[in-house]
Structure formats: C-alpha cells, structure tokens
C-alpha cells in the first residue's frame, strides 16, 4: 500500500525532484511525465482487459456466423452487425433514451439510498427504533416492485416522479440494512477513546461511525446501482413515455428486434459504466480497508 501510494511508476522517465530542479524544463518534464503515465495506464488496462475482450470478440464472431449460416430471420434474432446498424442508424434515439434512464436511476438511487442511510443512522442509535421500523422496511423489500409501479403511476401520473420513486424503493432496503450494520461496526476501543475525550454524538457519528460504515455502504451500492437501473426501466416500461423502457415497448410493438437488442446494449453499457465508476470511488475512499488491499 505504502509503495503504491508514494512511489511513481517504474516506467516514469524522470523522478519528480529532477524535473523540478531543471527549472525551465520543468513544464516539458511534467508533460512527458503525464503522457508516460497515460501510456502506462493504457498498457496496464490492456493487460487486465484482454481476456474478457477476447471472449467478447470470439462470442460475437460465433453469433454472427451462426445467424448467417443458418439464415435466422432478423425479427427472431438479429446478428451483431444488424444490431450495430440499428444503433448507428439513429444513435440519438438510443443515447437520448439511455441518458433519461440514467437520470431516473441515479435520481432514484440518491433518493432511496440517501434516505435509507439517513434512516439507518437513526436506527443504528436505537435498537428499539430498529425493531419498530424494520418490519415495514422489510415489507417494502418483499413486495414485488411491479405490483407497486401501477399504483405509483396512478398517484404521480406520467413524467419523472414515478420513475424516481420506483428506483428509490428498490434501492432502499440494501442500503438500510448495510447502513445500520455499518454504523454499528466501529472499533469499541476507539469509541472508548472518543467517550473519554467527551466527544459529542455528532462527532462520534461523523468522525467514527460514518467512516467505519463506508465498506458496508459500498457493498450496498454495488447491489443498489444495478437495482436502480432495473427500477427506472421497469417504471418507464409501465408508463411507456420515456427512457429505455419506452424504447423497449415501442421496439417490441414493431417487432424491431435489432432495436430491442440495441436497448439491451445501452442498458448494459450504463450498468458497466456505473459499476466501474463506483469501483473507482471505492478504491479511492477505502484504500485503508482490507477489502481494497492491493497485494
């Protein structure tokens, strides 16, 4: 850990002190250094990524070959090239729908996971309150979201609100459970020290409980992020007025199978991007935690 934090990559051209000491050449040094770093990252990325990329290329090639050799009709199963054509023919349709769904998912996530964390912070302080509220939280979790979605559309009408609410409901429970556990999983010896120092409840929460809960919060987010996307798309699909959900309903009605696959590609891309972004933030914030150990 120390090494990775303090050491510069071995491939770097000049050590920092040397670049600084050169004075007028410093800017050039800095530039080539950052260029070298990007190249290093790319190379490192490729080294990690080549096995799944190879699998993807092979799978797509086999799929394409199968469709062509067997002459499978496009409405049944389009070839990868047909899907690519559909995406390329009207990219704004897919990107636009994806952006709307992404917004619904993230909005719902902030609402649901944020609210769950706040409630979790309250519940973590009182076992009685936890017992009082937990059954209702569980009820929200076990009720299939498709049963609630029509109700929400009746209540909130079409538009963005029911999408946010569905995505929020579906992300609520994983965060609640993890927040309560996480906010209680602090080191008792550290807590003794805080108490001897006459720390306020607020100081204990912000300086001790909250950071200690982060590994749990991220575990919850890894579950909640894909769920938020599901919630958003289900709500969009039910009201059929925006986002990838609407795109799916329309493509389905038209027997436009390539567009259906296009929708899947868009959702998969959003899901992968969100998960990747989350992993980056997690690595940054949890570098101290054993789950992010690099050796």
């Amino acid at each position, binding site marked *: *850990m120390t090494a990775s934090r303090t050491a510069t990559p071995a491939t770097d051209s000049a050590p920092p002190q040397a670049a600084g000491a050169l004075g007028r050449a410093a800017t050039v040094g800095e530039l080539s250094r950052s260029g070298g770093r990007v190249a290093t990252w790319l190379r490192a990325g490729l080294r990690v990524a080549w096995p799944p990329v190879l699998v993807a290329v092979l799978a797509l090639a086999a799929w394409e070959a199968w469709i062509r050799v067997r002459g499978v009709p496009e409405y049944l199963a389009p070839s990868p090239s047909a899907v690519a054509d559909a995406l390329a023919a009207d990219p704004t349709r897919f990107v636009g729908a994806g952006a709307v769904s992404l917004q619904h998912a993230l909005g719902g996530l902030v609402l649901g996971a944020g609210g769950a964390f706040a409630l979790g912070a309250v519940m973590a302080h009182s076992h009685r309150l936890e017992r009082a509220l937990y059954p209702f939280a569980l009820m929200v979790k076990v009720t299939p979201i498709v049963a609630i979605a029509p109700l929400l559309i009746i209540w909130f009408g079409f538009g963005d609100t029911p999408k946010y609410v569905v995505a929020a409901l579906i992300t609520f429970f994983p965060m609640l459970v993890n927040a309560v556990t996480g906010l209680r999983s602090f080191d*008792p010896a550290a807590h003794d020290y805080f108490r001897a*120092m006459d720390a306020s409840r607020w100081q204990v929460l912000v300086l001790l409980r909250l950071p200690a809960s982060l590994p749990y919060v991220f575990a919850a987010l890894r579950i909640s992020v894909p769920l938020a996307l599901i919630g958003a798309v289900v709500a969009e699909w039910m009201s059929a007025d925006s986002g990838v959900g609407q795109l799916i309903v329309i493509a389905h009605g038209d027997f436009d199978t390539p567009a259906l696959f296009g929708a899947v590609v868009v959702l998969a891309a959003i899901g992968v991007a969100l998960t990747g972004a989350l992993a980056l933030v997690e690595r940054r914030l949890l570098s101290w935690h054993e789950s992010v150990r690099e050796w």
Partner: protein
Amino acid sequence: MTTSSTRPALAATPAVAVEGVSHRYESHDGALLLALDGVDLSVADGEFVSIVGPSGCGKTTLLRIVTGLIEPIAGHARVLGGEPEAARAAGAFGLVSQEPGLLPWRSVAGNVALSFELAGRRADRAEVRTLLGHAGIEPFADYFPRELSGGMRQRVALARALAHGPRLLLMDEPFGALDEFSREELRLELLRLWERERPSVLFVTHAIREAVLLSDRVVVLSPRPARVVADVAVELPRPRDGAVEETPAFLDHVARVREALREAGA
C-alpha cells in the same frame, strides 16, 4: 524535567479521589454480581498509581467510574476536585486501552491530530510532528495503522492520549496484548514520555513487575468483589530505566505486591 528523586510537593486537590465506590452488574443469566465493594483510591497530582488485581476483578469498571461513564451504586469519584463529567468536558483525560483503537482510515499523524479536534481546536501540523517526534514515531507520520506493528500502534495510541496535554492519563492494560519485547520497550518509552510533563496516571495492569517499575504507588485489589487490600509505596529513584529492575529494592517491592495478592487469595 526533574532529576531529583523526591516527589514534588503534592497539591491539595488530588487528581483522583475515589471514596467507598461499589458497583455491580448483571451477568448473562440475570444474577447480580458485585464487582467493586467499597473501593477507596486516590491519585495525587502528578502521581503515577497502578492498580493490580486478578483478571475480572473490576479494574476496568473502576476506570469507567473515574471517567464518569458509569455511575456507581454507592460512593463517589471526584476528579481534579470536581465531578468526573466536568473533568471529561474540560479534556482532562487521556486514555490508552489494551486495544489501540486507532482510526484505520487516518494516518498516524491524522490519528494524533484527532485529539486536538475532539478537544475543540485545529491541529497544527508542526505541533503534531513534534508530538510524534517525542513518541519516536515521526518517520511513520504518513503510515496507516495497518502498516504498523502492534507495538507501533500502541505508541501512536500513547501519543494520541498525550497530545492534548491531559492532566490525568488513564491506562487500561495498555501493553497487555503485546509481545514481551514490545512490552519492555513501551514501558520504558512510557516512563520517558511521562517524565516530560508528569501528568497524573492511573494505570491498570496485572503485571506486577510492570506496576513496580512504573509507579509511585501500587494499589492491590482482591478478587471479585474487589476491595483494596494493599497500598504499596514504591520508593525507587526517578527517572527510572530498565536497570532498576535488577536492583534488590525493586525485587523487594515486587515481592511485597506479590505477597499482598497472595494474601487476598488471588
């Protein structure tokens, strides 16, 4: 720092005055267990007092009563002439427990700076560095706790406990979880650090030699329910170092404490 072997004149208000303190708690099967039975204990200003007793005799409970985190069922504790809560609010306590209790997401410097933050003032970088220097951990300022050995972590905990200049240092078997080498090293380190400001210390341990090496007085507790069975004044010159452990006077003190423990049935 003083090189004289005599204690400075003791101030009128003792750092800790525990009078007739009793406490009991409920065991897992619902029975009430008397942990402390009329314990009297005092720590003079600047005095280093150890509490020695068998495990589970309520030493930790006594420390919690002194910090005001537990209200005893009988008797009372006063700290610096006032209520324990008031002393706590004034930042009078420094605490080192058996587990270091460091924040794993903060560097060594950040952990020591926490004492300033909790005492309500911003930590000065240079000030933190100086403190780390005193504790001999300055080279590790940017390390994280999990990169350190157990002994090093406990050094950080000690530096953190002393950072805000507490008037009363409470130590609850601070070296109990360490290997013998680290323990030896940290005892001497504690002596050295203590000599700088000479805060009052209440030190809980079940290591007799450790208690004698460090203390001005060793208070011996009986098995549960704990009563004070002996109060042994340690008349060894200060500042002390490891060499004192070889002297006949040291061994004589150790024998007296051990004898008191044996008589108490520990």
